[in-house]
């Protein structure tokens, strides 16, 4: 959820009335936004850097509003105001018109447009710059997908060329600098700039850097890093040339549409945008901005059913119009024609329209209903068995533990006296810390770590866990499967093998398995590096090995930082289903 900061008084002025904080909070909530914080620049600085630094900062109240991540049209004051006004039926959603033509010769994936006769004030200018920033962060994925450049059209002359040149050949005076630099020099200059250093990597290693020239060879910008100083926008700029260069054409078009729709309201002919014609190297031409108004037909019955309300068709059309989706009843049955403006690139399917209708209706107003169809429930058999076992194991005096499913490589191998290559473990490519490198193949380390963390508790410590481990399995489409295991540990002054063995017998009793070879279970002495020699046994069920139990080897105890002897049991649960 990106956060947009707007000056409260400017906001209220644009909205045409003032609100109390609570009223505005309510309004935001109805519209699907959240008023996150009410603060001022001064407060922000004093919170982050200390009260003394904040003394010169502005006291003006700022509203920080959370907007949904896919609503690019709400990322600036202008967009917010427009959305809210239309929602409150104070304003009709404006239609943006395309005018005239301008040419620009470009390589793939650059789009452009012109805003004519625009009037900037300080606030609008700030808002303009901020919108670019927000879009860069948001839909442009930190400038890697799209980069926006805005220029004072009167300082340069078209047609403009978007090309790529070796870094040494690019030379210009970048924004807010006093002298010219080559592109290579700029890379090192901006390495220390807190704002720009994050974007350098996008083009740093490429043999040629992108650059935009005008017909006189003046550099407009070197996307995605920095614009030229020559064409920079000031408060006096009257004509703005907006260009977006991108690796994703769809996103570039969306971004361009956003920029122009938001700020064309300040042009002398409000809501009018001048087209730019883009010429591709193969001679193909395209006009931008597309500003496509898409029409979609759907039935009010569809909306009523999905949302769970029952409104007449006209009312539905009104609700949608409130959300900037201008709608009209066509008169054919309960059909509504919805016009989706370019500002709503988040509306991709009829269900998005339906969602907006629900928001306009108010989610809190939708009545609760119970489902009409009756269904019979079913437990997943493995879970059913697990639940039953858990109850009885707690009744047997053992306490349930809940441990991490991810652990370090050592936990399942070295610490238990085993080799990592023999464990069939699934390895994580990008673990957050070394504690989470593999998915666990055994529940034992988790229990032992739990015991180690609870050494201060009175003895004996009796723990159990019934949960999944992950093992590699080539027969599955993903190459791995889960296996439900049961693990128990007894930690006391004496190892208590008989206690763990007793627990095993009790578990078998619960599972209705006889203590007999063949059709039941039996245990047999075995060697295992995790356990103390001579005190380890393997559990067999119907002739197959399903687990082992025994007294833990002192080396294992030492590696897990345990001071007392400990006996443990681990067994596969799935064969008993």
């Amino acid at each position, binding site marked *: 959820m990106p956060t947009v900061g707007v000056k409260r008084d400017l906001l209220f002025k644009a909205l045409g009335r003032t609100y109390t904080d609570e009223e505005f909070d309510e309004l935001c909530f109805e519209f699907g936004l959240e008023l996150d914080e009410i603060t001022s620049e001064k407060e922000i600085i004093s919170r982050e850097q200390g009260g003394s630094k904040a003394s010169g900062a502005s006291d003006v109240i700022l509203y920080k509003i959370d907007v949904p991540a896919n609503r690019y049209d709400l990322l600036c004051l202008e967009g917010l105001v427009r959305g809210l006004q239309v929602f409150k039926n104070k304003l009709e959603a404006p239609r943006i018109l395309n005018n005239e033509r301008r040419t620009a010769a470009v390589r793939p994936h650059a789009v452009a447009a012109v805003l004519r006769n625009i009037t900037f004030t300080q606030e609008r200018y700030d808002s303009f710059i901020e919108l670019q920033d927000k879009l860069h962060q948001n839909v442009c994925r930190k400038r890697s997908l799209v980069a926006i450049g805005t220029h004072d059209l009167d300082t340069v002359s078209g047609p403009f060329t978007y090309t790529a040149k070796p870094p040494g050949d690019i030379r210009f005076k970048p924004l807010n600098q006093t002298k010219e630099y080559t592109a290579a020099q700029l890379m090192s200059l901006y390495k220390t700039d807190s704002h720009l250093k994050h974007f350098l990597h996008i083009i740093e290693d490429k043999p040629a850097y992108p650059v935009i020239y005008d017909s006189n060879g003046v550099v407009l910008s070197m996307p995605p890093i920095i614009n030229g100083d020559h064409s920079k926008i000031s408060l006096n700029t009257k004509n703005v040339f907006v260009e977006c260069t991108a690796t994703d054409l769809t996103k570039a078009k969306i971004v361009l549409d956003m920029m122009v729709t938001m700020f064309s309201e300040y042009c002398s002919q409000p809501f009018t945008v001048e087209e730019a014609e883009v010429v591709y190297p193969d001679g193909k031409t395209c006009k931008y901005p597309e500003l496509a108004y898409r029409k979609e037909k759907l039935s009010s019955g569809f909306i009523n059913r999905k949302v769970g309300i029952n409104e007449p068709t006209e009312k539905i059309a009104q609700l949608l119009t409130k959300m900037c989706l201008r709608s009209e009843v066509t008169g054919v049955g309960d059909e509504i024609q919805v016009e989706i403006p370019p500002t709503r690139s988040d509306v991709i*399917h009829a269900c998005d329209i339906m969602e907006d209708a629900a928001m306009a209706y108010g989610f809190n107003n939708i009545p609760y209903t119970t489902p009409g169809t009756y269904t019979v429930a079913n437990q997943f058999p493995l879970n059913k068995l697990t639940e039953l076992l858990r109850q009885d194991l707690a009744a047997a005096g053992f*306490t349930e533990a809940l441990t991490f499913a991810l652990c370090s490589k050592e936990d399942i191998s070295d610490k238990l006296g085993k080799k990592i290559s023999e464990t069939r473990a*699934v390895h994580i490519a990008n673990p957050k810390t070394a504690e989470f490198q593999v998915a666990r193949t055994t529940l034992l380390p988790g229990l032992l770590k739990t015991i180690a963390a609870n050494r201060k508790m009175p003895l004996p410590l009796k723990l159990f866990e019934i949960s999944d481990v992950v093992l590699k399995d080539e027969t599955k489409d993903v190459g791995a499967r889960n296996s439900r295991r049961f693990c128990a540990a007894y930690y006391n002054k004496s190892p208590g093998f008989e206690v763990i063995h007793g627990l095993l017998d009790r578990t078998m009793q619960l599972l209705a398995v006889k203590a007999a070879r063949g059709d039941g279970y039996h245990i047999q002495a075995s060697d295992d590096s995790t356990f103390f020699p001579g005190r380890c046994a393997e559990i067999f069920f119907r002739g197959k090995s399903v687990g082992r139990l025994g007294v833990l080897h002192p080396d294992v105890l030492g590696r897990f930082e345990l001071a007392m002897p400990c006996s443990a049991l681990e067994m596969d649960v799935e064969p008993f289903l």
Partner: protein
Amino acid sequence: MADTGVLETLLRRIEKVDDGVDSLEVATSLGVDHQVLVGAVKSLQALGDLISAELRSSKHWELLGEGTEIAEQGSHEARVFGSIPPEGLGQSELMKLSFGKIGFSKAMSNKWIRVDKAHEGGPRIFRTVEDIEDQVREKLLLVQRGNSSKLEEKEKNELKKRKLLSEVTVKSYWITKGSSFSTTITKLETELTPEMIANGSWKEKKFKPYNFEAMGVAPDCGHMHPLMKVRTQFRQIFLEMGFTEMPTNNFIESSFWNFDSLFQPQQHPARDQHDTFFLSDPALAHGFPPDYLERVKKVHSEGGYGSQGYKYDWKVEEAQKNILRTHTTAVSARMLYKLAQQERDPGCHPSGRVPPDRGRGGRLRAHAGGPHGHPARVLHQTRDYQAPLQAGLQPVHGAQHGSVQLP
């Protein structure tokens, strides 16, 4: 229980006296150790209100080991003095004596002896005065005889510093008759026994009163984990509503089922390195239903089923990447696909699906892991809308998809 002899003697003593007796005095007069008497007092107290004993403490000074030695043999410095014959004694010889070192320095400071360093045969010690008064020994003797009050506080503290004296707190009891005093001791029974029941002797016996203020014996029981208890309750609620549990026992999932089939675009931030755990081994999945894969690809890149799609190049390599399942909706996707295949079969009945299990997105890591030995998992619910799924699935009739996830 102390010797009944002591108990009865004590009781008789108390009986004779009007006000009470001091335990120390009784101990000395009976010739028993004070602790034995204290034991007797405690036993009597346990029997009810036979006696009442008031704790008193008194302090007095006692000689420590070294102090006793000095009291008997004289202080170190005095002994040093005493061991020097008229012709003097070699210093080295003096030091050989046990009291030599300490006594020497003290005697010097008292100016009782002097050293002739230049003497032939080594430094030699001579007496300076004829007689001495062994004040230290006298003071200690006073204390030993019990007249410590004759000494000033300052002197006592000085001797305490030299570790010759110590102040000892003695606890004694002032014992008086209790409300139900008697010279005979009736032993109270603690518990009913089978023999008493058998021979009916319980009717004549007196029983020790219970202390109802104390706690009982805690039963040695096992416990279920609190989070698991909550999960059990959730399961119960959904089962009662008629939902069927989905099989979620697969933590490893392919990006295809986890993201692509749920219409999440491939460049979406949730698929970043930061927010999803990818696997290095096994790295890739295979075996996707080919027709379905094509449909998913089409909807992402071109649109379809009423959707505009995202209009980007959809790559199958991205979909093959294995991850730790970030949400159980991935299981829902598989289930819905399966149901859709089944719906051609007759006998399909309505069912709701619920998977109560874990998802493993990057952000869960930030929450999990408490300081206790039982790390916590964050539980949350999401509602599924069928509409976006329909873009990727053929329409399913007759099956109800109220799917809710419990990670």
